[in-house]
């Protein structure tokens, strides 16, 4: 049994769903951030898999992965900065207690 495109896609699907669950269910902002990272990585896997199996000729898939990485880095930097400053002001990173933006 050879490993095909579907394997990688399903792997990324699983990873994505796990990340999704974490992002939706967890209360600690940092864990949510980590889950988001998981989702991004899942996307990367599927992108690379598509590149490898569908269009090895043009590098668009890999280029996209690179940009995803850049975005992930930026997102993590800003996100953690926000979390830390929230922690400074409110002594918590529990998203259920950070609801200043409700009605």
């Amino acid at each position, binding site marked *: 049994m050879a490993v095909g495109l579907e394997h990688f896609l399903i792997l990324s699907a699983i990873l994505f769903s796990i990340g999704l669950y974490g992002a*939706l*269910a967890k209360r600690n902002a940092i864990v*949510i951030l980590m889950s988001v990272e998981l989702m991004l990585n899942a996307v990367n896997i599927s992108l690379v898999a598509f590149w490898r199996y569908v269009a090895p000729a043009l590098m668009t898939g890999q280029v996209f992965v690179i940009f995803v990485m850049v975005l992930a880095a930026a997102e993590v930097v800003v996100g953690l900065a926000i979390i830390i400053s929230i922690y400074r002001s409110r002594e918590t990173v529990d*998203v259920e207690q950070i*609801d200043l*933006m*409700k*009605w």
Partner: protein
Amino acid sequence: MMPTEVALAIILLPFLSFAIISFIIRPFFNNRPQISGYVAIASIGTSLILSLWALVEVIKAPGHVLPMPDYQWLAIGDTAIYIGVTVDALAAVMLIVVTSVSLLVQIYSQGYMHGDPGYSRYFAFMSLFTGSMLGLVLADSLVFLYLFWEGVGLCSYLLIGFWFHKPEAARAATKAFLVTRIGDFGFLAAILLLYANTGTFDIGELHELALAGALGGTVLTWAAIGIFSGAVGKSAQFPLHTWLPDAMEGPTPVSALIHAATMVAAGVYLVARMFPMFASSTEAITTVAIIGGVTAIFAATMGLVMNDIKRVLAYSTISQLGYMMLGLGAVGVAVASGALDLEHGLMLGVAVGIFHLFNHAFFKALLFLGAGSVNHATGTFDMRLMGGLRKAMPWTYVTFLIASLSIAGIWPLAGFWSKEGILAESFHYAPILFALALITVFLTAFYMFRVVFMTFGGEYRGHSQDSHGLHESPLVMILPMVLLAILAVASGWLPISEFLGGESHSFFGALASPMAWASLVLAGFGILLAYAIYSKKWISAESLRRAFAPLYTLFSRKYWFDELYENVFVMRILINGLFALFHKFDDRVVDGLVNGVAGGTIVASKRIRRVQTGQLQLYGMAIFIGILAIVAVFFIFG
């Protein structure tokens, strides 16, 4: 052949300097404001040179018209609005007037405005104004023209209220703006009316239509009257004259440039530009003529009794503008009645009016600059606190005197020629107006020399301690005055009239006509009277005042026009009448509607806002549920 870009450059240069001053110099070099002065002067100087070039080209050009292409400005559906510039004789002359006077005035302002905190702002506005005025002059379509028309209106507002910290200045600015707005409304209405009927804004086409009679009589009349109302507003003609005297709150150079030489003349220019249209409607042109005549004499009478030198000059400006209108009107009436053949008549009318405008620009600007210089020395505009400045400031005195003689129409100064032309035409075609004109000549001479004698003759009547502080103004102010004085003497000798298509007049031959003598005699009489009263005190002003008490009060209270407008129109009719109604309507209906809607929204949002839990995860959940839903839809129906 002159490229179109040059014509555009003439307009754009001042705008450029405005931009430079207000966006670069004011923010970044505010500590060295004089730069902005230099920038403005450089730009306007360049446009002056270009205008001279344009003039030369026009003179060389056949029919004195330079063909210029039009540019599509905007297209609404399939109707495109074209804008472009016309450089013909009229425009060329106006260009020279505007640029030269503006240049001199700005040079003068360097001295006058020196050390003013708003120095840069001042020059920015001046540049903006000059640009708008040039655009107004060169515009060949009514839309374009109206654009710049409002532009100059704005600039005049800004510059009248330049010292906005003075409440009366601010009030005067508002007043000027509103009063002219009334006229502009008529103008705009006329433009729309014309467009509705002809489908074009292009002045040339409109003229052709008008002369061909394609434009219906009433429409034409109303359009012309509407346009004229705009002119009335800008040139402060009879019903709407009240703003100009108050406009003297602005800096004196502003008054010299805007409220004497150029902007107020824009009304006259407008009538001249649209002259064929006026000339083809008897009612319209008659209105012009009558309004002009009435304004001329009626403003002059008020000028008799003012004590504020600038106000006197303001009234004289109004009356002189009336004069020009009168000239245009007189010829126009003749043309309309067919007493004068068409194209010669058209030429003639424009020539008569604009020639006087041309001369008037110079000597009136000079008069204002003189007043400014006097004020620079004495710090007041009240003539009762002046006197005896002849010795203190000889240059100002001489130039002012020349200007006064010129405006009084003394041969061979500039004023004489144009005034004589107007008198001649009005004599031929409109005797009644001629009578008014003659009286005005007398009055003009009288009040001008009243000013001269009260200001420069006799002894200094101001506070004695600063009598020795009197001094001549700096060179930068004197120089433009001298130049203007030369123009005020010589501008009449230029063949402007023929250039515009009017009759030529030989230098001495003019003295042959009785008209000239009549005006000269009247003017001389006026001067003598003034001399008798205000210089030699043979006749005491007091006794005269007592003798003509009712008239005096009438004049000095400006025929109660301000009160009329303030109390009757504004207070009674508008505020207590119309506006009250509107207010009720607003209160009941509009607000009711709005509040109802708002109330509803509030009530609804009280419920709906519960959705906004502020829990990011809930939102994310919603998003993904949505995605799932979409996918499901695809699976089911796709």
